[in-house]
């Protein structure tokens, strides 16, 4: 397996621990994935900025990122729902010949061309397939499965109650390339269960965190009001931590809990949770950058190890 990690904007600059956790779990000591480094990536670009103002610019910028991966024989893997949604949507739109020609016309000014990844060669003809854009949740679920992940767990998190927040852009909109069932998603829950922890059920589990679409930037109060509803549903069932696959949802849950002055529930990224279960030292997982203290959760994790 070859993954080209697309870390995006929020993870390396706000939650570097998530990036470190992902590199550690994918590294040779644990899952042993071959990582391809690409240093010419830019912003995915963000949907509320580019997709809302000019679809052509959005598609051209996204295609530029995809071009960098197409000849590397690797899957583009991201740890962010925003990047995932933006780039997946782009691969889908680039299937349209007219749009693809329009994009390639623009890309030719910088000496690039989007073809997709070489799928097979028949005689003298090359057949291409879209660049495969994947979310870390889907990649681990599909490539390793519950057993594959569980076999790497050295520190089972038995007895911990985890509230799972998939985040909107991992699931929706439903299209041909959707990876999980938007009504009853299983992937993130399965990964959490693979660590030995329990994924708790709660009301309105697929609700939005409230940050997306530029709401957090423009009207933080509204974003927090939306988060509060979801927080109350989670708090009602008594979760030890909230686990999400999206750094922006993480940011929102973290910030909103501080702003709302509620009983804090630690929020961690799925990569960080898996890293804890794989027995990686929490010192390397960058929990100091989270606003809600993760220490109480780490104490509970330690307690499970002793038993």
């Amino acid at each position, binding site marked *: 397996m070859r993954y080209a990690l697309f870390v*995006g*904007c*929020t993870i*390396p*600059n*706000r939650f*570097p621990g998530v*990036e*470190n956790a992902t*590199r550690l779990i994918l590294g040779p000591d644990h899952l042993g994935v071959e990582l391809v*480094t690409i*240093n*010419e*990536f*830019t*912003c995915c*670009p*963000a*949907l*509320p*900025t580019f*997709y*809302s*103002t*000019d*679809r052509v*610019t959005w598609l*051209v*910028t996204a295609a*530029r990122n995809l071009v960098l991966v197409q000849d590397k024989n690797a899957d583009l893997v991201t740890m962010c729902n925003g990047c995932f949604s933006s780039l997946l949507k782009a691969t889908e739109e680039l299937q349209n010949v007219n749009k693809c020609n329009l994009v390639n016309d*623009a890309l030719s*000014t*910088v000496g690039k061309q989007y073809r997709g990844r070489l799928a097979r060669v028949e005689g003298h003809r090359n057949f291409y397939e879209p660049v495969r854009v994947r979310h870390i949740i889907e990649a681990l679920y599909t490539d390793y499965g519950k057993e594959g992940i569980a076999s790497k767990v050295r520190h089972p998190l038995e007895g911990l109650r985890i509230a799972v927040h998939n985040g*909107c*852009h991992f699931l*929706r*909109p*439903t299209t041909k390339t959707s990876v999980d069932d*938007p*009504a009853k998603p299983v992937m993130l829950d399965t990964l959490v269960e693979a660590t030995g922890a329990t994924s708790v059920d709660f009301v309105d589990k*697929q*609700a*939005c965190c*409230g940050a*997306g*679409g*530029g*709401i957090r*930037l*423009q*009207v*933080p*109060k*509204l974003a927090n*009001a*939306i988060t509060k*509803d979801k927080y109350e549903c989670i708090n009602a069932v008594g979760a030890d931590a909230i686990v999400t696959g999206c750094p922006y949802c993480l940011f929102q849950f973290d910030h909103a809990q501080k702003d709302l002055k509620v009983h804090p529930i630690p929020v961690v990224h799925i990569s960080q949770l898996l890293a804890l279960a794989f027995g990686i030292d929490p010192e*390397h997982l*960058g929990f100091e*950058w989270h606003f809600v203290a993760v220490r109480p959760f780490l104490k509970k994790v330690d307690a499970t190890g002793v038993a």
Partner: protein
Amino acid sequence: MSQGGAPEAQKKRPAENGADETKIPETQPLIIEDSVFTGAEHDPDFVKQIIRYGGKDVQTCLQCGNCTGVCPVSLKTPYKTRNLIKLCQYGYKRIFFTIPWICAGCHRCHEHCPADINPAEVFVAIRHIEVRERGVPKFIRDNTSLILRYGFGAIPSDDIRRYREKEGLDPLPNTLPGYTKVLKELETLFKKTHFDKLVGIEISGEGEKKVEGEK
């Protein structure tokens, strides 16, 4: 609404609306059943315009209200998805220019729409129209200039930079010497698609970006 809406909307978006945060009215100015609209707000081409910018035909909306029921924003503000789609059907374009961009893009409305309209995409189309007729909100311009400067929408604090070094994480791509070439590429692409003019950012030849209103 009918009195105040039109002249307010005709004003161009101010170049810099400062640090004051977007206000959401607490009352319900948008219960369209109770409002009287004058012809000034009406635009017969609005439905066609939405289709041109990638939205679906809003005339097929059944007004069932499923979208409002699942919308996180409708729950907390006076802006109800079903009402907004009704306003689209009537062609009340200018009213949208007074509404902040607060669709979360969560696409729950799309999942529950029996007519397969996808209101979230309709709002994206309306944003396209608004940008072309009234200019862009400040946060879009700020974000674009960040991306033109650094390639990404965020930059690390010194502490985070130190942490990355300590943990031996790869240096951020935009700190590597070869990255200026990437930024040049972005500039060329944005110029090619005329995004710089749309957003109001001046891209001069030698990597100097001047943001409108910046001294």
